[in-house]
């Protein structure tokens, strides 16, 4: 700087003017600066999104089941349509006009049930039940479930009265009675049958079981307490897949941490460069092999897990050189090592390969978006706790000038996330699938003290087949 005394009036005038001048920067400038200094905020967006989607889908599937009452009514309607097609056409319009409240209303339902019973009484042939075989049947109605409706041969009339007096069939879940070589009698025709029975005979009212109800074989005038779905082996499927992929890495250089670490190399412009600017790397082919088991939660959702093996790798362009000491800064610690590979210069170019072998247990959910005949379109996401073995990574030194062995600070366990979408086609017993897959390593490859965070990415095409386990 020159001596200010040499300034003439013109310079004084200019200095005075411009020193009063202010220009206010845009907001994004500070954001950019902050991002550059503190690095990108490590918000695990992909992981968070995947976990949220999976959780919501699982919760949605398991908890928000269709309303049982509505289901019961639907089944009643379907069954009614089956047993009496002539009638079905007429009330169908009415059903659509009814509100949900009307359809689930206990009183309305009871009225409908009684009306249905009466209709049946009129329509059904008495001869159907007047055969000796039917007459020989024994009728037992569980008191606890049908409000003490017990009918015996000598009390048919009483039973008839009791049944007619049932006012709330919704409150009387049908306790399914095991048929004992008896002919199943439609509940709605019971009155008719009972009135024609010989007083000396016992009959058994054999009500439809839950499975029959689901199949729509029986008209069900009232609420049915459906058994909870049990684990069904029909829902299980086995899957095998292979995914050729292109593996790459993303570096997030926490420059401030690198510069502020206990080891800070001699002042040079490269120290302030971003690691992404000084590394030269190329993706390499990786592969994924795995098998899994799927459990269909519904038509749309399948819960999947399995075992998976991955090889992921990428190439680093470096240089051969003589062995030189180099330092890896780890926050308050650092360690010295020697390296014969330079990042910026050396005697001859060389390609270093960072290769990982991984075993993981993917747990995820598969959602069927579209289904057209044998072809379907699905999306799937999975979280993959991963164990990494046989690792010999080349690690960038703190001054960004060398590559050294980084196996000592590499994580053994990591967490990956995968997202995929695929088209599948059913061919015989097998469903074949193909589609793109993205896999992301959520935790940095090296421990958290190493300031250059490396996240691996795989872009692959997944091919596989699924077979139902019967």
């Amino acid at each position: 700087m020159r001596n200010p005394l040499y300034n003439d009036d013109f310079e004084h005038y200019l200095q005075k003017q411009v020193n009063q001048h202010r220009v206010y920067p845009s907001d994004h400038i500070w954001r950019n600066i902050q991002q550059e200094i503190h690095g990108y905020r490590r918000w695990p967006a992909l992981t968070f999104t995947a976990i949220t989607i999976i959780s919501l889908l699982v919760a949605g599937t398991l908890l928000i089941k269709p309303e049982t009452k509505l289901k019961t009514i639907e089944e009643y309607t379907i069954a009614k349509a089956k047993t009496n097609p002539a009638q079905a056409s007429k009330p169908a319009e009415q059903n659509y006009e009814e509100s949900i409240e009307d359809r689930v209303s206990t009183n309305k339902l009871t009225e409908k049930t009684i009306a249905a019973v009466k209709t049946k009484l009129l329509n059904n042939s008495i001869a159907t039940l007047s055969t000796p075989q039917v007459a020989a049947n024994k009728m037992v109605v569980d008191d606890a479930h049908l409000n003490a409706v017990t009918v015996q041969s000598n009390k048919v009339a009483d039973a008839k009265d009791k049944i007619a007096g049932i006012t709330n069939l919704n409150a009387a879940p049908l306790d399914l009675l095991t048929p004992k070589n008896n002919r199943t009698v439609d509940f709605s025709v019971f009155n008719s049958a009972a009135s024609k029975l010989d007083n000396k005979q016992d009959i058994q009212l054999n009500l439809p079981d839950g499975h029959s109800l689901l199949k729509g074989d029986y008209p069900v005038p009232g609420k049915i307490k459906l058994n909870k779905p049990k684990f069904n082996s029909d829902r299980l499927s086995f899957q095998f897949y292979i995914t050729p992929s292109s593996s790459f890495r993303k570096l997030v250089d926490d420059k401030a941490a690198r510069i502020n670490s206990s080891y800070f190399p001699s002042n040079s412009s490269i120290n302030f460069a971003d690691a992404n600017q000084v590394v030269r790397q190329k993706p390499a082919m990786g592969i994924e092999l795995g098998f899994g088991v799927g459990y269909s939660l519904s038509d749309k959702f399948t819960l999947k897990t399995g075992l998976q093996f991955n090889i992921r790798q990428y190439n680093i362009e470096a240089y051969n050189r003589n062995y030189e000491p180099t330092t890896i800064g780890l926050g308050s610690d650092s360690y010295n090592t020697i390296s014969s590979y330079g990042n910026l210069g050396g005697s001859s170019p060389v390609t270093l390969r960072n290769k990982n072998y991984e075993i993981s247990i993917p747990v995820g959910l598969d959602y069927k978006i579209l289904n057209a005949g044998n072809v379907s379109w699905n999306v799937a996401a999975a979280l993959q706790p991963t164990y990494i073995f046989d690792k010999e990574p080349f690690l960038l030194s703190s001054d960004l000038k060398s590559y050294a062995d980084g196996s000592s600070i590499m994580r053994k366990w990591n967490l990956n996330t995968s997202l995929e979408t695929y088209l599948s086609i059913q061919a015989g017993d097998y469903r074949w699938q193909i589609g793109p897959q993205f896999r992301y390593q959520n935790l940095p490859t090296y421990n958290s003290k190493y300031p250059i965070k490396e996240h691996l990415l795989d872009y692959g095409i997944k091919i596989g087949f699924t077979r139902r386990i019967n």
Partner: protein
Amino acid sequence: MLSAAELKKYCLFLGVLQKTLMTEEALIYGCLHNDPSAQRELYNRYSPKMLSVCYRYAQNREDAEDMLQEGFIKVFTQINTFQNKGAFEGWIRRIIVHTCINFLKKYKKFNESVDLDHAGYLQVKEETIPSLMQAKQVVECIRLLPVGYKTVLNLYAIEGYSHKEIADMLEIEESTSRSQYTRAKAMLEAILIKKKILEKPETELTWSVALKNR
């Protein structure tokens, strides 16, 4: 008893007061420890003045903001090299000025026009500069100069660098710096007079007398 609204106002006031009273030493200490709030406060305090510096060197506002961003990143990452031997603002300013020069060199904006001889034909219309406050007018007049001229003028007349330092920074001859400055000064005078920011001096008077007459 204070109401909730009053308490909120009081807290806000305390927050503002705390920031206002944050000393330069505290800011430097915070920045040395990579404290985001100290960095933000430092940026808020100096960025308007530093953007004005960048604006004088840059071709447009976008370039000026890029220079500012790059400069402040250097400030925060190299703050451990500040040795308390001079004014902190001066230290920041030197980093910003060097960043501006490097930016111009990097994008070849400096070399392209450093030796412009046709600068004398620069057309200046009165309406090109709005009648804002005089400081802004003067800055806008400086910005009208060709890049080479205004860079030398900024460095010599405003930042106070010697011609030798300027020659080293811009990688030009010292004599070139002198001649550029002489031309830049003459041109700026002409512009200021044309814009009626300065009065045209009488033949026998120097421009400084004209200044005094204002």
